[in-house]
């Protein structure tokens, strides 16, 4: 990673070595130096484009169509460019952590845009899964089955996979509105309205389905632990 003063001294080629924080800082200064801002954007986009796209394909699978996924990726970067001044860098010792921090920030932007996009669609459209994406997920599951992983996370994943499609969608939508640190998975009223319309049921019924889904996850976990002779309290 290099700092701003060094970048100025070494010139343009050094932009490929610039930290994400510096790139965003150059983008934030676009009014004074549009050429550097655009170079910084290009570098930032090339670093994170595939990551954002692959995450978007997974998260939006079945919720947005292919064109909308492409749009979401582009809009995430456009928003990042325009909101670059809001990025708060941290003093990281290594490049990897700094990259993850920038990607977490992109994740917040993409999540907001995704929610907006679904709301503007005037309804939660439940599209069919993209076959290629399903294949990729299936492949991942086969690989993951042989990997040592935190067992509790795997159990929760197993529990989620036992839910009906409707229960999974409702929990997914609640999770999209969840921020780390929140106490509960909640569904905003506007989304409840749309879900109720989609499934042709009342909002209360959607809330009940969400609670039932959580109860199923809890029961599944309890049952799995009891099978192993434990007496865990959830």
């Amino acid at each position, binding site marked *: 990673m290099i700092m701003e003063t060094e970048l100025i001294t070494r010139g343009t080629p050094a932009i490929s070595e610039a930290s994400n924080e510096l790139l965003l800082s150059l983008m934030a*200064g*676009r*009014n*004074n130096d*549009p050429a550097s801002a*655009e170079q910084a*954007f*290009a570098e930032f986009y090339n670093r994170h*484009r*595939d*990551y954002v*796209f*692959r*995450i978007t394909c*997974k*998260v939006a699978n079945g919720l947005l169509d292919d064109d909308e996924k*492409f749009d979401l*990726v582009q809009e995430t*970067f*456009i928003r990042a*460019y*325009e909101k670059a001044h*809001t990025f708060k860098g941290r003093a990281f010792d290594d490049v990897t952590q700094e990259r*993850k921090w920038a*990607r*977490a920030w992109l*994740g*917040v932007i993409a*999540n907001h845009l*995704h929610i*907006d996009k679904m709301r503007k669609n005037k309804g939660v459209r439940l599209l069919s899964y993209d076959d290629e994406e399903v294949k*990729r997920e299936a*492949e*991942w599951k086969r*690989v*993951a089955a042989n990997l040592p992983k*935190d*067992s*509790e996370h795997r*159990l929760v*994943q197993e*529990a*989620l996979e036992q839910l009906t499609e409707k229960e999974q969608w409702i*929990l*997914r939508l609640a999770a*999209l509105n969840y921020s780390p640190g929140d106490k*509960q*998975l*909640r569904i*905003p*009223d*506007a989304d409840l309205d749309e879900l109720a319309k989609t499934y042709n049921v009342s909002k209360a019924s959607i809330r009940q389905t969400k609670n039932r889904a*959580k109860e199923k996850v809890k029961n599944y*976990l309890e049952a799995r*632990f009891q099978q*192993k*002779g*434990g007496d*865990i309290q*959830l």
Partner: protein
Amino acid sequence: MNNEEKNWKTTESHDGSLDEQIYRAMVELGWVFPQTVEEVEIAEEQMYRETAPPHTGLPTAEDILKRMRSANSRIPVVERMQLLPLLRQRSKMKATAIAESMGVTVTFLSDISSHSNVIPFKPRKEVASLAEAKLPGVTGQEVLDSFDPDLYQPMAAFRDRPFEEENVNYEKIVLRSDMSEEQQRYWLSLAEEEQK
């Protein structure tokens, strides 16, 4: 107690609710956007193990920059306006008259116009409905769009340095709006409904 139970208990006491456990599992399943360093780590780890090639159909950085330049030069200024200037221009009314017609205060309108990013969806919808119903020449959709003016904001409007970000939220805006207590309760209730 086997290791699995021990792990679970440790995590449960450390991480809190079942909801958080479900959320974390969803991060691993790729059902939500990773929004913390730890979540990005999980997502990246999974990506490295996947064999999917990077997508080749994505636009280049130059394509996106062109799109932004083109959007800046093509979109009429009025479509990029913040809420209050938009209402004034469309209705040809003064801010005080607009506020009076909508049953709110100028302070409130000015605040939600300047801090549109902190306004929850339900109050936005209410402002849009009120504006459409009470003001001439205003549509609800353009009011809703005005809450999100930054996407195609013209370059000329960007400043060298941003204004210092004021620590403001929707509740603060309502409480300092000079509206009656009853009005304040109503506007706050809209945001609360959204949280339920």
